[in-house]
């Protein structure tokens, strides 16, 4: 019996770049195929070819052994392919039911049979084993629930191949578990699933086979049973990484940042913490535990209702991010695209944003000084860009993170708060970011690192704080002998 989906020799070029070069991919019915690769390896392009968003320059796509031509999203849908992108395609103002059947009304002026739609939606949710109300407004659902709506939408279109692009990125551990339950359900029905994720742990849990892409080339496809974590990373990066977390301990000095009894609403309920010179304090917990919210209060992005913040023994009044920046505290937000960078502006302008005043003489900006300052960071942080005037939106996640870092380093920040420093960043660049964190700690900065990835927290912190429902519920000082289970235990409290 032919495989459910066969892609042969898929090649796609963009002006100046060959994004995909003769990619082969096979997916069987009832199989979960993990698609792995660093950012820029070609995963998204391959998915977009499958989804009809890109038309390949060469190659064939076969479903059940029959060649199909996919030149538009409609073609893809008709071929039985459902794609769940990272950014959902849901209309937040419409109900679950309306979203599921959007575009399937069968004609602009056709009467909509709400009741039969409702019935069908119910059946879909029963099939997935989740109790979701078809009449709920989509915008009011959690990310995990919206994902289920997307899956239901794909199923309603009789999809036999479902592609999930980083489905777990915004989910809590528990939600990931229920997602896996759904995936197993779909498998049992004979649906083939292509699963894209950076989280290797998950791939071991759910995938049957793994296909790895690198720089637009097909590196290899192997059954999960024959693979190790190290081997996977090696295939993705193209070289072996001996140690995923190159932690180096810096000399730890006096307390730099001290936070006492920080409060804001229900998100942050009396958080106290301190970070020492040269120390990396890992702050972890489940999504919604109040970690990001705490960081935003320290940085002045939101106004604290109560609490004290001291830096090097000096009491600070922080009402705006401006105050925090002036005092030497900076925040690398978890969402770089919407909070960290002005994507339409150039890299140089983003770098200059908090620093323009120091490049200003007699009210006029001195472009040359700004340029040369930026150039030193481009070199020292190894930021990959074609020129300083390249728009920040065109960079990869890792390089964007480095631009954000550069702008704060130029401000000479003493306290650096990383919120999910490696989210959406590929393995190779992750390693570089870790090295940077080491370097900053060695320079005597105090580093607060917020992360949901337990291996990262355990691998890179000198000390770990765990939060749960707005409170600090535990501290781990002996990081070397701590385990993920120990952290999870504190996180669930």
């Amino acid at each position, binding site marked *: 019996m032919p495989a459910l989906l066969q892609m042969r020799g898929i090649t796609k070029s963009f002006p100046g770049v060959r994004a995909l070069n003769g990619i082969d991919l096979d997916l069987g019915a009832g199989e979960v195929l993990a698609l792995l690769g660093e950012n820029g390896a070609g995963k998204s392009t391959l998915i977009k070819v499958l989804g009809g968003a890109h038309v390949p320059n060469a190659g064939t796509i076969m479903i059940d052994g029959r060649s199909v031509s996919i030149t538009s999203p409609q073609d893809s849908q008709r071929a039985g392919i459902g794609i769940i992108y990272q950014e959902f395609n849901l209309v937040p103002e419409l109900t679950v039911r309306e979203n599921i059947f959007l575009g399937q009304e069968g004609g602009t002026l056709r009467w909509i049979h709400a009741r039969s739609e409702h019935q069908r939606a119910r059946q879909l949710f029963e099939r997935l084993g989740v109790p979701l109300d078809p009449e709920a407004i989509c915008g009011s659902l959690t990310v995990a629930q919206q994902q289920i709506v997307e899956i239901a939408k794909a199923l309603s279109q009789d999809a036999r191949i479902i592609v999930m692009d980083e489905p777990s990125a915004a989910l809590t551990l528990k939600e990931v578990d229920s997602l896996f339950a759904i995936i197993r359900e779909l498998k049992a029905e004979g649906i083939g699933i292509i699963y894209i994720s950076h989280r290797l742990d998950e791939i071991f849990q759910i995938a049957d086979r793994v296909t790895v892409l690198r720089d637009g080339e097909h590196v290899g496809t192997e059954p999960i049973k024959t693979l190790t974590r190290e081997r996977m990373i090696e295939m993705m990066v193209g070289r072996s990484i001996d140690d995923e977390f190159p932690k180096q301990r810096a000399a730890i000095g006096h307390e730099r940042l001290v936070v006492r009894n920080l409060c804001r609403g229900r998100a942050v309920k009396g958080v106290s913490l301190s970070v020492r010179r040269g120390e990396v304090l890992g702050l972890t917990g489940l999504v919604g535990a109040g970690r990001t919210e705490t960081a935003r209060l320290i940085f002045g992005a939101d106004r604290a209702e109560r609490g004290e913040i001291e830096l090097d023994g000096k009491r600070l009044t922080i009402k705006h991010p401006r105050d925090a920046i002036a005092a030497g505290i900076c925040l690398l937000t978890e969402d770089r695209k*919407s909070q960290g960078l*002005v994507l339409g502006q150039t890299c140089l302008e983003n770098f200059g*944003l908090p620093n323009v005043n120091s490049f200003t003489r007699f009210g006029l*900006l001195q472009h040359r000084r700004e340029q040369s300052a930026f150039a030193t960071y481009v070199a020292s942080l190894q930021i990959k860009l074609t020129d300083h005037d390249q728009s920040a939106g065109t960079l990869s996640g890792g390089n964007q993170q480095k631009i954000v870092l550069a*702008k704060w380093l130029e401000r000479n920040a003493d306290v650096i708060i990383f919120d999910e420093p490696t989210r959406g960043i590929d393995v190779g660049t992750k390693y570089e970011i870790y090295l940077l964190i080491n370097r900053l700690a060695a320079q005597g900065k105090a580093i607060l690192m917020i992360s949901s990835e337990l291996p990262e927290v355990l691998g890179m912190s000198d000390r770990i704080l765990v939060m749960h429902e707005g409170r600090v519920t535990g501290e781990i000082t002996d990081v070397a002998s701590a385990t993920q289970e120990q952290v999870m235990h504190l996180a669930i409290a």
Partner: protein
Amino acid sequence: MQKFVSQYGVVFVLVLLCAYYSFATLNQQHPADAATGRKLATYITLQLPNANVLIVVRDSDDDRAFAASIRQSLETAGVKPLGVAAGEPRDIVAELRRLGAAGTKLDVIVTHHASAQWTVLGEGRLKELADEFPSLANVQVLKPSSYTWPTFLTRGNLLSIGNQVAVTAIIAIAMTMVIITAGIDLSVGSLMALSGVLAAWAIHRLAGEGDPGLMTLALACFVAVLLSAAIGLLTGVMVTAFDIPAFIVTLAVMRIARGLAYQVADGPSPIGIKSEAFHSLSAGTLLGVSNPVILMVVLYFLAYALMSHTALGRYIYAVGGNPEAARLSGVPVKRVLLFVYAMCGALAGLGGVMEASLFSVGNPNSGVGYELQIIAAVVVGGTSLMGGKGKVLGTLIGALILAVISNGMYLTKVDSYTQMIVFGVLILIAVLLDQLKTRRWKL
């Protein structure tokens, strides 16, 4: 090439338009200004030093100025003309008859192209007179030589384009800033009217029926501009502190300011301003260039420096591009927004004072629809209504393009309804080009 087109495309369009209208308005030019008058006088003093000269013109300000320059130049050179005859053809005949009857010898009639066309100064008629009066036997008609040149490119026309464009272009500076922050200001037209009326009212109040002094004028203008700036600031407060969309706030302010203008003027009729000094503010020239154009150039230079070479300029772009990222980078987002709206109010106020000065009245009906013209200039100049992108100098080019088309259509006698359609289509093309630019020229 693509980079060239996207960055200098609008300049190219402007040049093309100018070239087109230069070609389309290629005509016989018949100069009749002071400089031409002096040239004629020099010719006479050199070639006909002892001639008796009569200067003949129509009865209008321009013609009198022409005549006066000839007379003055002749007198400085030591030639005493018989006089200036200004009026209708029959007045001229009467004057000639008078000279003839008195037996005064007449050698040269100096005039310009238009009067030279009169039958009175035609050969037949002059011969009849010569037969009647012997002293008029050898009269020679002298006029400036004509030449072929585009009407579009005459000094007078270019100056009038400059004057037309100055007020809108000046307000468009601040509009560009507002639009770069992803906002909009619909109240500028009404603010112009309010500011003009206020200035007129204040001058009237302070000076009564007499001629206002310079201090009075300065004070009145200052108050008008300051008040407009304050209203702009208030708009900014509504937008920043209460998060009301700028479109709604300025729509309301547009009505309020117009109403206030009528109230101050006590009805729809304009308040007159009797002051030469105030009029010369807009009507005067410096080195041959009118004051509004000079002011416009200076302000554009300052705005360019602000947007490209100061922290504030960088902030304005950042706030439009991503306000949250800007705030988290320490940009005082609210203050930046307050600044751009206050600036928009202030420049609208300045525009109102300039308009009042040009027409010597504070008119509560002035500036109707200007906001749309100004926004059109900004859009044609390549600034994106989505915010974050745009150039002040692009706006200047945009305003010039609109003014050149308007002027060109007037010169080529396109009717006003067609003009409206052309402007509408032009705005669509501008936006379309912008879209294509962001799509990297792929359809």
